[in-house]
């Protein structure tokens, strides 16, 4: 190889590498999975949403994130909601005093956003929650996170994985980290946990239009170790959702 040829080959290869890096960066394959920013108030989810036996209060996620089953947006609790309890409870603790300061100054708490899908994705929480998808399926077991981080990649492949292969409510319950095992024959739809002991929710009965898949023979293709670590269950029990582009992109 002559010197000259070498000098064109090396930058050429490097340019290709750079090009690949750039393209992959913008291809959506990038993710902020694992992102764990520091919040203005060190809010302990385990204390509020953790199971009672673990020393938590066992609050339902919807107690604070109360529009998740009514709206596309999940909603953050108003400062007044926090102060509803914390005017009295733990008022002397430093983190609570931070909260009280926000409240007294009539300033909202500027929580740092962790989970975000791009603007061109329309993710309706209400559809998923009412279909029995537990919060933990996508957000991880927040009730055990001392500091919340982004659990799933939120990439398109991750979304489509569930939409194509279907979702088994039992997996959702398992992902939620419930200590009690679903009863035999339970097919999802209604929560089976003891009220107060489960952090996840699943409200509606089999939603209309959400008929079970016809083909029972098709092999379930849920890859092992896919997001959420869902175990593969027979596809007959899996609920599937529409997955053409215009369901989310418009």
């Amino acid at each position, binding site marked *: 190889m002559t*010197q000259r040829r070498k*000098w064109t080959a*090396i*930058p050429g290869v490097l340019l290709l590498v*750079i090009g690949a*890096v*750039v393209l992959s*960066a*913008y291809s*959506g394959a*990038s*993710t*902020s999975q694992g*992102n764990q920013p520091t919040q203005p108030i060190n809010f302990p989810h385990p204390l509020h949403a953790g199971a009672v036996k673990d020393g938590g209060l066992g609050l339902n996620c919807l107690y604070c994130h109360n*529009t998740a089953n*009514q*709206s*596309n*947006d*999940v*909603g*953050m*609790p*108003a*400062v*007044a909601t926090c102060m509803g309890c914390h005017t009295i409870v733990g008022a002397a603790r430093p983190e609570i005093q931070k909260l009280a300061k926000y409240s007294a100054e*009539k*300033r*909202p*708490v*500027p*929580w*740092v*956003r*962790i989970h*975000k899908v*791009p603007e*061109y*994705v*329309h993710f*309706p929480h*209400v*559809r998923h929650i*009412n279909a029995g998808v537990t919060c933990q399926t996508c957000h991880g077991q927040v009730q055990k996170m001392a500091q919340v981080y982004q659990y799933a990649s939120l990439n398109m492949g991750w979304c489509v994985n569930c939409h194509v292969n279907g979702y088994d409510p039992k997996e959702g319950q398992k992902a939620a980290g419930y200590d009690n095992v679903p009863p035999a024959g339970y097919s999802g739809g209604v929560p089976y946990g003891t009220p107060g002991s489960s952090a996840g929710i699943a409200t509606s009965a089999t*939603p*209309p*239009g959400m*008929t079970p898949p*016809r*083909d029972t023979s098709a092999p379930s293709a849920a890859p092992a170790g896919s997001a959420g670590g869902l175990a593969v269950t027979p596809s007959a029990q899996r609920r*599937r*959702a*529409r*997955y*053409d*582009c*215009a*369901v989310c*992109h*418009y």
Partner: protein
Amino acid sequence: MSNEARPAGVKRRDFLKVLGASSAAVATVGCSSEKVGNLVPYLVHPDDTIAGVSNYYATTCRECAASCGLIAETRDGRVIKLEGNPEHPINRGALCARGQSALQGLYNPDRFRGPMVKENGAWKAIDWNAALTLVGQRLGQARTGGAAANGVFLNQHESGSFPAFLDAWLAGFGMGPHLSVDFEADSAAMEANRAAYGAAWPRLSFKDARLIVSFGADFLEGWGASVPQQLDFADARAKLEGAPRFVYVGPRRSLTGLNADQWIACRPGTELAIANALAGKGSIADAARTSGVAEATLTRLQQELGAAKPALVLAGARGPDALELGQAVAALNATTGAVGTTIRPAEAMPAFEGVARTADVLALVERMRASQVPIAFVRGVNPAYALPAGARFAEAFAKVPFKVSFSLYPDETTELCDLVLPDLHALESWGDADAGRATISMQQPAMDPVFAGTRATADVLIQLAQKDPAVASRYTQKEYRDWLISRFPGGESAFTAALQKGVATGTVAARTAPAAAPAAPARIAPAIDSTRGDYFLVTYFSPTLGDGRGANKPWLQELPDPVSKVLWSSWVEIHPETAAKLGVDRGDIVEVTGPGGTVRAPAYLYLGIRHDTIALAIGQGHGSVAKLDQFEPKHTAAGVIQWGYGRYARGLGARAHDLIAPVTDRAGALALVSTRASVRKTGDSEILVSTEGSARQHGRGIAQAVTVTQLGGLRPAGATDGAAAPAPEAQGAGAAAGEDPNAEGHEEIPGEPSGAFLPGLRSPVAADAQGELGSPTADDQGKNKGMYAPNHWSGMTNRRWAMTIDLARCTGCSACVTACYAENNIPTVGAPWQNATVWADAKAGFNITRSREMNWLRIERYFEGAEQGQFTEDFEARFTPMLCQHCGNAPCEPVCPVYATYHAPDGLNVQVYNRCVGTRYCSNNCPYKVRYFNWFGYGEPDRKQYAFPEPLNWQLNPDVTVRQKGVMEKCSFCVQRIREAETRAKVEGREVAPDEFTTACSQACPSRAIVFGDAADPQWTVAKQVGDRRAYHVFEELNTFTAVVYLKKVNHPGPAAPAGA
């Protein structure tokens, strides 16, 4: 190797270092997570709101005098969309383009942020207390000086309680009643109506008429209440066989004129002669000679008028003898049995009572000039713009020692004032309006004020009064809202209950009419002097910009004029034959000189105007006294007040009304058609900013029409001989053959039989390539066909979203276009600074002249007849709303290299923005040309082309992606509304109900021409309409199998159609 000479320059090691560092930088930038913001919660969660779910408030539109009912959709505290209130007696759910655009008045970036005072010629901010004290002092001075009675208050005309409230307030300070100004108002028609029927604006019931004759009354535009009139007119036209024929008499075919079945092109100012002759006062032959109309035409009209009872004759020509014309027409109506049937004084619209005449304003200007006016208040009125230059308003206004403006925007009049106390927008403030028939229309704030520094004028007036010991006792309430409640029938509980519906039973306390009858107008327009000038001059209020009020709203600037399709500029309408004589071509700049002055504007060659006439629209030509450069987002400092009515209005087009002298008709309205003008070719030329591609169909059959006599011969699609229309289910494959004469050789296309599972549409939807044909194994029972399989578990293929557009109803008003902008975050692209950076030419509409327009839904206007451009009264205009046809067999889909456009199983042709790489192949392959490309970053705030400068971006619909540079976009059939309805149904545990929701265009349409729904479900209205005998697809021969079905327009030729008129 190392001994070889190396080229000089970068060493290998350095090169690699740089390379490594830069690629690391790229990787870091590329991989870093998208900029993530904060999640900001409420302090206290408001009741009845759910984050991300809309709330709806019923209120009243204040964009014109008609006072339509609104439903304001708010999301998280911001109004994002306005729709008509279906419960409202005036507009019954519809809303015009100007009403839609109220949002851009609310969020206008050029609104005043707080009060300002002019000191030594310079404006500076002032706080409210100081401002109120200043006004209080000046009011006190005027009162002690005994001159208060000469103070004036000019208020934008509105009905409801405020006029009475204002008069009482003025009386408290020793001032006379205010002037309720609406420059657009046709005072002549109102005065004639009042004399004949006892009401300024009786309800016009078009559907009871058998013949409609309009003498220049543009009832589909600014003449009166356009929305209710259009609703009634479209209902009349929808009767098809029983529909009234419509004859338009006037020198120029306006939008209303283009909707007429017959045009009688009379010479300007001769309408009265015709009306008199029709009534038998004067001979037809004389009238024909005066008006330049064929005698046979007038005779026929007279006979028709005698036979067709009841008829509806309207007078709206704005010439010197407008009042006499109104009286003559009233007499005609009395003889044709119109009163009580087609003209209903009992259902009159009180919103038009009490309008001050332009003559009164002109008289006031003269009083100002004589230094008789010590103090002046202006609210919502812009006389410095709206009065012709000949009135020399600025000079007279300067002689008023203290002038206060309550304007929201930096308009021409405000610039001349001494103090600005910015009012709240109607969507932020309390009020009411008189909706007629004992109904009060409620006006409530749909959101908190956009700018904290602005205050409702009514509240400011109360605060002023409470600071004044002499008046304070009259105002016990702290706010105007409390004052309204104190007078509301039934008190607070009834008031609160009424707010939910937007209307309440009762009447508002009317304003006591000024004691003295208004003086006769001082400057009456003389009859048109036919020796002066070369051409008759017609000026008219723009259907979109009104009297100039709309010019600061980019949606209205971007809305093509329904007649000329010109936008962002002014134009001169000249007949092609006249233009040929002058040597003028389309786009040539001509100079028009009238008695009031000279304007320059490009020529637009228009078939619908007489040889001897030219026409210009009023509404453009805003400007400031201050010398301001063209607004440029990157170089204009924030906080520079955009005098001249804001960045979107200043410097565009010409002030057409400057051509005429400030003279009025005998009823006191500006005589818009009262003179002749001379036209000179300047030699300059420009590309007309227009969205009109071709005014001709070239045999393409885009806008189809039948005459009413042919209607009986039409067979419903798919009907067999002698059989009644089959149920929609039966109409499947090949049904199109029933209507298409060329369908003899219609081949069975592959996949066609699968259309059977998509009943309702006449055309078979090609079972998509991914379905019947795309499956590698045809016998796998749909397993691998995905969602396109007819029996797919998701049920998506059970629906076929479709639309019908009834061209017999459509008037071309373009309300749907603006509704689409509002719903779908469509950027406006015509502002001068939205061009490419490399082009220095900063002309408004630059992008549009380079075919970069952006309107998902456009109104195509085609002419039939007068093919050679010769003058004839006998040509027809057809309006066709054109949007993505959501083809079953879409040409755009297979050419996309990245599958960014694809076919959803429920019949939508979908554009996936994040997949699009901008090849624009789809647009090239679209026969309907309904795909639009983002040439610049209209949706990106850091670019100069950004279309939504703060706070215009508050209006953006959160359910729709704001598109970025380089992607293609198009009509989505309001897929976000489909998804919303599906989600609602799912949450409620049911299926989507028939006609449960509709698209934005269909919702707004004041003609009710657009119907949207699921054509596969026979319970939806659209499924019933697609089988109509008038149904057709545009470009059916291309086998695109569109989901948009047009219903042919129905023409009503006269008893004996004029042969070669």
